C-alpha cells in the first residue's frame, strides 16, 4: 500500500498546489481550473494528441533512463531527436518518387528508420567515447555537442534544406504513404504510442531479467565493482549511451512520420529535456516512464488549454509545470518502491 501511497500523495499535493495557484493568478479562476482539468479529456482531438505526445516523450525518456541506469547523463537529447528527425524528413521527402510496396516505399521507410536510429546512437556514442578514452565528462560533452548542433540544424532547416515553395521554416513534406496513419482522427494519436510503451516494457524486462541488463544496471551503480568483477565497464557505458541516443533518434523518426510530416525549425522544442525530466521522475525505471510521460503530456496539454482559453499568463504555465514537477519528483515522496528510506538501509 505504501508504494502506491507515496506517488498518489505527491500527485494530490501537486494538484492542490496547482488549484490554489490557478485560482489566485487567473482573472477567471473557475474557467481556468475547468479548462485545465477537463480540456485534455474533452475530445478525441485533445486526448489523442496528448497520448501522442506522451508516446514520443516515453520513447525518449526510456532512452534517458537507460543512460542513467548505465551511469551516464545524456544531456544531448535535443540534438539526438532533431538531427535524426531532419535525416528522416530528408530521406522520406527525397523518396517521394518511390511507389508504396515492399521493395520501394517500404525500403525507403526502413532506410530512414535505420538512419535515424544510427544518427541518434552516434550522437550519444561520441560523448561516451570521449569519456572512456579521455575521461571527459559525458554530461558536459553531450550537452555541448547538442548545443553546438542545434543552431546548425536550425540553419539547415531554415536555409539550404527549406521547402522554398512554402512560407514555413521547414523541409519539404514527406509523401503521404510514409505517414503513420492516425488511429483516432482528428488527433494524431498513432501506433508510435504503443511502440514506445512496448519498448519501455522490453527495456524494463531486459534490465531486470537478463544478464546484459544486470551488468548495465550494476555498472551504473558500481563502476569500480563492475570493472573488478571483469565486466567491460567502458563498453557497457558506451552501449548505454548509444542505446539512449538510438531511442532519441527513434523519437525524431516518429515525430516526423507520425506528427509533423516535415522537419520544422526547432523540431525537438524541449522534448529532450522533458524526456530527461520524465526519466528522473520515473526514478530511471522504464516501467514508470510511461505514467511519468503521460503526466508530463497532460501537464503540457492542460496548461496549453488553460493558456489558450483564458487569460492565464504564458509564464504562469511554466510556473505551474515547475511546481508540479518539483512536488512529484521530490525525494521525500518517491515514486518507486526501490527508493524508499528503508530500501536505502535507513531505519524502519
Amino acid at each position, binding site marked *: 500500500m505504501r508504494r502506491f501511497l507515496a506517488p498518489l500523495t505527491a500527485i494530490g499535493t501537486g494538484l492542490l498546489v496547482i488549484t490554489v495557484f490557478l485560482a489566485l493568478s487567473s482573472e477567471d479562476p473557475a474557467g481556468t481550473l475547468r479548462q485545465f482539468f477537463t480540456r485534455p479529456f474533452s475530445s478525441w482531438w485533445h486526448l489523442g494528441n496528448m497520448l501522442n505526445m506522451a508516446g514520443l516523450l516515453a520513447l525518449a525518456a526510456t532512452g534517458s533512463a537507460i543512460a542513467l541506469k548505465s551511469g551516464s547523463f545524456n544531456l544531448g537529447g535535443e540534438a539526438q531527436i532533431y538531427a535524426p528527425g531532419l535525416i528522416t524528413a530528408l530521406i522520406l521527402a527525397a523518396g517521394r518518387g518511390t511507389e508504396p510496396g515492399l521493395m520501394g516505399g517500404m525500403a525507403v521507410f526502413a532506410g530512414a528508420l535505420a538512419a535515424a536510429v544510427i544518427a541518434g546512437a552516434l550522437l550519444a556514442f561520441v560523448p561516451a567515447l570521449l569519456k572512456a578514452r579521455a575521461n571527459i565528462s559525458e554530461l558536459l560533452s553531450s550537452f555541448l555537442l547538442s548545443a553546438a548542433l542545434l543552431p546548425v540544424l536550425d540553419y539547415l532547416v531554415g536555409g539550404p534544406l527549406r521547402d522554398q515553395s512554402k512560407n514555413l521554416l521547414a523541409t519539404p513534406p514527406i509523401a503521404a504513404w510514409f505517414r503513420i496513419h492516425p488511429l483516432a482522427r482528428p488527433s494524431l494519436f498513432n501506433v508510435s504510442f504503443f511502440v514506445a510503451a512496448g519498448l519501455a516494457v522490453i527495456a524494463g524486462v531486459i534490465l531486470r531479467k537478463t544478464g*546484459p541488463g*544486470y551488468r548495465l544496471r550494476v555498472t551504473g*551503480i558500481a563502476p569500480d*565493482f563492475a570493472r*573488478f568483477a*571483469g565486466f567491460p565497464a567502458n563498453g557497457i557505458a558506451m552501449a548505454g549511451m548509444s542505446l539512449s541516443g538510438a531511442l532519441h533518434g527513434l523519437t525524431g523518426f516518429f515525430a516526423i512520420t507520425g506528427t509533423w510530416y516535415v522537419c520544422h525549425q526547432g523540431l525537438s522544442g524541449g522534448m529532450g529535456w522533458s524526456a530527461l525530466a520524465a526519466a528522473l521522475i520515473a526514478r530511471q525505471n522504464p516501467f514508470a516512464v510511461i505514467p511519468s510521460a503521460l503526466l508530463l503530456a497532460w501537464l503540457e496539454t492542460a496548461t496549453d488549454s488553460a493558456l489558450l482559453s483564458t487569460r492565464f499568463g504564458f509564464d504562469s504555465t511554466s510556473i505551474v509545470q515547475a511546481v508540479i514537477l518539483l512536488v512529484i519528483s521530490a525525494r521525500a515522496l518517491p515514486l518507486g518502491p526501490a527508493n524508499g528510506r528503508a*530500501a536505502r*538501509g535507513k*531505519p524502519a
Partner: protein
Amino acid sequence: MSRRVKAELAGVSVVFESAADGSGIPYRFTALDGVSLPFSTGELHTILGENGAGKSTLVHVLSGLQEPSAGTVFVDGTGTSFSSPADALERGIAMVHQRPLLSDELTVLENVALGSRGLFVRRSAKRREILELAGDWDIDLDLNARVRALSPADRLRAALLGALYAGPSLLILDEPTAVLAPGDRARFMEAAGRARDRGLGIILITHKIEEALRWSDRISVLRKGKLVHSSPMLDDGGNHLVDSSMLEAFLDAPAVGGIRPSAGPESRREYGDPAISPQPSFSVNGLSASPANRPSISDISFTALPGTITGIFGHPGSGMGTLEDALSGMIRPDSGTVTIRMPGGNGGTDRGHEPKTVALGPSRLNPRRLRDCGVALVPSNRAYRGSHPDLSVADFLLAYRSRAWVMRRDGDTAFVADVLEREGIPAAPERLARTLSGGQLQRLILARELASGPSILILTEPEWGLDIRSAALLRERLVESARSGMTVIVLTDTPDTMAIGGFYHKVLRLREGRLS
C-alpha cells in the same frame, strides 16, 4: 583527569528494513537491540564484538551517521537527534573510520582544515595548530603531501588529525590499529592513553582482546545487536573485573547457522590431491608499475604452486596497494608478464581437458582476462571493489552468474540463499551491502569468489575487519582450498593470526616496491 558522562545511549535500537521481495513481506534486520550505554570523557571505552554484532551500527548512531529506530541519544544530559555527522561534531563527538573518506586531491593540511569556520584561512596558523596536535599524538606526517599518495596508515593519521582539529570531547576510533604496522600500534595506543589522560573520551572499536585489556578503562561487549557485558576494568579497590577468558566467553556465541565448509564447487580438479603440484600455476615475471602519486613497484617476480599458500608481506608505503592493483589488472603495469597455467577440465572458462598456459602482458592484463583464466580476486577495498554499498546482497553475489543472456530466477535465488546459509548470515537477498558488517561482507565476497570455481585465489588484506573467530575460519577455508589444489596468494600488511607457523608455504616480503 576529569571524567563525566558526555553521551549516553538509552534503549537504542536500529532496525533495517529492505524493500519487499516477491512475497510482499519487507525484510527486517535488527542490528542493535535496546542498547543502553554511557560514554564519558577522560575514559577509554572499548567496544568488543564479533562481526555483525552491531559495533559499527552503535558508533554510527553516536556519530550521527545512523538514526536510531527506537531509543534516545543523550548528549550532555539532553536528549538529541543527530541529522548528520556534522551535527554530532557540533556537539563534540567525532569519528575516525576504518577507511577514512578524504579528498585525494587535497593536501593533508587542506583535508584537516576542511570545514573550519571563518571567512579567511591563515595557513600558517592552521599549520601550527595541526603540528601541535600531531605532536600530541606522536604523528609524523608531511602536511603538504597529497592524500592520494598516502599509505592507508597515514590516511588514518590524517583523518585522526581532522577529527582532533574539530576539538571533540568524545572521539570514536573504528579499529585504528588494523591498518598500522605492528611496531606502530603500541605507540598509537600510548598516544591515545595520553589524550585520555588530558580529558578526551575515547571509544575504541576492536576485535583484539589483548588490546582491549591492555588499554581500556571500560569494556563493553555486543553480541547479535545486544549488550551482553559492560563494566570498568578495575573496581574501586583496583582489582581487575575483566579478564581474557571472561571476554572470550562473552564473545564465544555460536554463529547463526554455523559456517559450513566449502562454498565452492563440488569437485575441484584432477590434481585435487593434498600433494603439491611441481608446476607453477601463477608466475609473475618482471612486473613493474609506477602509477602517479603512489608508491611504485619494480621488477616483481615470483611463482606460486597449486596446492600452496603464498604470503606477500609489506608494510604500508611499501607498494602493496600498487602490487594489488597490478596483479588484479586494475592498473596497467609498465612492463612484465603474468603467466597462468590453467588446469585441464577445470578452472576458468576454458573447460577443455588439456592444460593451457596464458601469458598476460601489460596490455592484456585486466580483471576480465584474469577471471577468464580462473583467477578469483578478493580485494582490500571490499566496500567499492568487492561490492558496493548501494548494491543488494543478491546483486553483488550474482556477478559471475550474469554471463548468460537470461538470468534464471530460481537458480539464482537458490544460489544466493545457499551462500547466505553457508556463511550463517541472516540476510535477505534484497538487503543492501551497506547494512552488512565488514566481516560479513568479506565472507560473502570470498564465498562468491570460491563459488566461481577458480584455480587461483588472490586475496588482499583478508583478515581486515574480521574478529578472531572469523579470521580462524578464513584460515581454515584457505587451507582447505589449497588442499583441494587451488593456488592461494595472500597480500597483507597485517600478518597477524595468519602468520602462525605453518600456514604459508612460501613467504615473500615487499620492501620499497621490490620483493625479497
